[in-house]
């Protein structure tokens, strides 16, 4: 599971009002190289919940001096875009779980795939 994907995931457990962001508890993390594309990263940034990304990076020990709020004119800062590229697309959670911040319900991540399926009573 990449952090670009994690940034979009929420918990839909019955009764939960804000199941976001899902807390990452990783037992295995991999970093896979992916060709840098500044334009793509630049376009993705406005779609992100930036603070959730920073939290996620922190949970994985990958904070790497990423600022807690977005810098202006980031589109032209290649060093910054490369850091964002790495955290969004190259860092992957292989094993672990995602925890709903409200209900505590855990969604397992196995072989890189988060399982967001709920039981019938949830």
């Amino acid at each position, binding site marked *: 599971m990449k952090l670009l994907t994690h940034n979009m*995931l929420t918990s839909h457990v019955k009764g939960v009002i804000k199941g976001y962001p899902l807390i990452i508890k990783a037992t295995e993390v991999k970093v896979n190289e992916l060709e840098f594309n500044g334009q793509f990263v630049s376009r993705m940034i406005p779609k992100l919940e930036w603070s959730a990304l920073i939290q996620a990076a922190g949970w994985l020990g990958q904070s790497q001096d990423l600022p807690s709020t977005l810098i202006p004119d980031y589109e032209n800062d290649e060093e910054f875009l490369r850091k964002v590229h790495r955290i969004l697309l190259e860092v992957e959670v292989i094993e672990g779980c995602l925890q709903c911040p409200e209900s505590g319900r855990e969604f397992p991540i196995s072989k890189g*795939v988060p*399982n967001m*399926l709920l039981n019938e009573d949830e």
Partner: protein
Amino acid sequence: MSGTDGLEYTIQLFYVFSLTVGCMLYTIHNTFDDIQNKLVADLGCGCGVLSVGAAVLDAGLCVGFDIDEYALDIFKGNVEDFELSNIDTVQCDVCSIGSSYAKKFDTVIMNPPFGTKHNQGIDMQFLRTAISMASTAVYSLHKTSTRDHIQKKANDWKVKMEVIAELRYDLPASYKFHKKKSVDIQVDFIRFTPT
């Protein structure tokens, strides 16, 4: 029939379509430029035929969504075989994700379940979700026989519908409950865009 048999039946249909989805992707990429450097979602990705294709065509990232862990396992194998890094997957029920991903993706591509024996109307649920997720376009396959129904829905949902191609398949009988020797299926390849 048990629930699992029903799922296997649906998955088998998907294998038949895998050659066509290659052509589908080529059109999306060459004619509409909706894959390269885009954030793409593949709803009901199964073994990942569409996602692998999108990744090979240089999607910025392609995220596959499917309910079936066995299909997703095969998906993983395909990703490894092709050594692709711009793919991700989520196991979930596409019919339950509602609007969590509203407009987050540039493009949604899919070969949805066709609403056969056990899941009538599922293709429309997939379509509805896809439209909410895509900011630019949704590309999907639907039975030609449902075209008018889909056009009505597209009007209700305020999306433009364009039938890009009509495809025909001859599916041989493979299960005991199949009464005919083979069945002719006509499918529309459709592009949906916000109006």
